[in-house]
């Protein structure tokens, strides 16, 4: 392939390295050394992480977690335009401002859909395993060019803005990856097996409805713990779904899989472990309560989970 995901890692690593250097020299940041160290370590993960021994990366990840955990990551003061300047600029540029914002999803979509047909001399142009992410990267770079042209700004100002938003997000930016790592540690350590064992040993599933409820609620609970329905599915389906719902009660496995996974998604709506969907948006939207997005989702998730118990019960045994 020509554009592999590795280039995106270099790009992000370079942006983070610039952020680290700018943070280290930022007099307005009360914790510039520890914050700079945090972003510097993170930059290394992207620039050379795959060439380092995993042990070193592990030490780096623990160091980052300790810096963040003891309040070592802070942002600097960023000068923002005045209300009048915002209004004047919004008036001058008008709907043109929407174009670069919409260009990112549009290019991503076009790239994803046409990836199969884009090749140079038989070599695929976009990394076939990561078409969406690589297309997103292309979309962001093209969109950056467009916005610089529209607003007469330089890419250097773009880097400053990127650092402003990175400062606003702080360690929340790294949390999804930390949790992803934890999911892998959980599966290496056999947490899934232990949960499945406990569920199947201590709950009496002689009643068909109880078995259905255990599967649906179990998917949600396990997703709440792991932060990801994909991790819960093999555990609950292997532990309860296949042996009990299909094996004992002869339900339709297609319905079980579909409703089961979507019950897992109800769990995703409820958990801080799904940081990319719940915690990062709260940071992005500058909400003082980090769980505000989860709070807004709780009624929807619980009502839908209840609906799923009945949907699975009635649709699986048609």
């Amino acid at each position, binding site marked *: 392939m020509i554009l592999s995901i590795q280039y*995106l890692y270099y790009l*992000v690593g370079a942006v983070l390295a610039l952020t680290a250097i700018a943070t280290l020299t930022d007099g307005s940041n009360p914790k510039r050394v520890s914050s700079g160290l945090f972003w510097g370590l993170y930059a290394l*993960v992207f620039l050379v992480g795959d060439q380092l021994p*995993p*042990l070193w990366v*592990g*030490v*780096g*990840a*623990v160091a980052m977690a300790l810096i963040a*955990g*003891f309040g070592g990551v802070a942002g600097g003061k960023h000068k923002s335009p005045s209300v009048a300047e915002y209004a*004047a*600029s*919004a008036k001058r540029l008008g709907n043109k*401002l929407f174009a670069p*914002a919409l260009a*990112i999803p549009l290019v991503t*979509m076009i790239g994803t859909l046409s990836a199969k047909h884009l090749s140079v001399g038989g070599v695929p142009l976009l990394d076939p395993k*990561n078409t969406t992410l690589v297309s*997103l*990267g292309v979309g962001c770079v093209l969109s*950056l060019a467009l916005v610089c042209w529209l*607003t007469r700004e330089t890419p250097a100002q773009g880097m*400053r*803005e*990127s650092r402003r938003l990175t400062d606003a*997000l702080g*360690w929340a930016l790294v949390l*999804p*990856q*930390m*949790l*992803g790592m*934890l999911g892998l*540690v*959980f599966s290496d*350590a056999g*947490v899934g097996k232990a949960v499945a064992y406990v569920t199947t040993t201590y709950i009496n599933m002689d009643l068909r409805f109880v078995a259905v409820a255990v599967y649906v609620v179990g998917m949600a609970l396990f997703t709440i713990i792991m932060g990801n*329905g*994909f991790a819960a599915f*093999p555990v609950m*389906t*292997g532990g309860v779904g*296949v042996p009990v719902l299909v094996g004992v009660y002869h339900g339709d*496995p297609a319905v079980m*899989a579909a*409703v089961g996974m979507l019950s897992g*998604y109800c769990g995703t709506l409820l958990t801080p472990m799904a*940081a*990319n969907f719940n915690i990062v*948006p*709260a940071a992005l*939207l500058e*909400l003082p309560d980090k769980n*505000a*997005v989860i709070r*807004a989702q709780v009624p*929807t998730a619980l009502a*839908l989970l209840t609906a799923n118990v009945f949907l699975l019960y009635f649709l699986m045994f048609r």
Partner: protein
Amino acid sequence: MLSDVNLWPLIGVAIIIVGFVLRFNPMLVVIVTAVGTALAAGFPIDKILATIGTGFIKTRNLPLIILLPLAVIGLLERHGLRQHAQNWISSIKSATAGRLLIVYLAARQLTAAIGLTSLGGHPQMVRPLLAPMAEGATEARYGTLPERIRHKLRAFSAATDNVGLFFGEDIFVAFGAIVLMTTFLHEAGIDVEPLHVAFWGIPTAICAFAIHAWRLYRLDGVLARELKAEGIEPLAASATKTA
């Protein structure tokens, strides 16, 4: 059966729940959980660090979706994108936060269902466009809003993007989750058609839309009551009666 399942790793589950409930810093909770779980599984210390390192490298793709758009979004914000999004929505007289979010929910769910999951998302759609529009539509009716109401509107915008995405993408046949499910079932000796799995996601998807859209429909009334409790009434009738 009893002898070959080590129940000690469940300690990890306990650590993470206690950590989040007691509101320790999440980064700290996660790393302590990772080390604690691996210790409980009997890993030596160098293997624990190596497992953490391998996991951290394998998941490097996760932050890309947030990091990559930041420069563009930051530049656009510097030039008034959020203000413009607010002005634009307030020029539509019938727009309310609830109605706007219902339309977005439907669009997000339908586009995700045909595989266009990238047409949304928190950094590139919710922060610069959807949340300012929800705030703008409400401001056009009530004037300046208290912070609490602003935060509520933002949280609902993010929640709506999540609900639309989650309960749309799973009815797209080529989506990764469907592949994961059919592969897993195949290995368990059960063959199902990916199309059937996608099809049986539809009833839940419809329920998800009905439940969340109903909550959004009620949101306008809830906002009106909460604003009234703070002594904020709708602006002059001439500006709002067209709804």
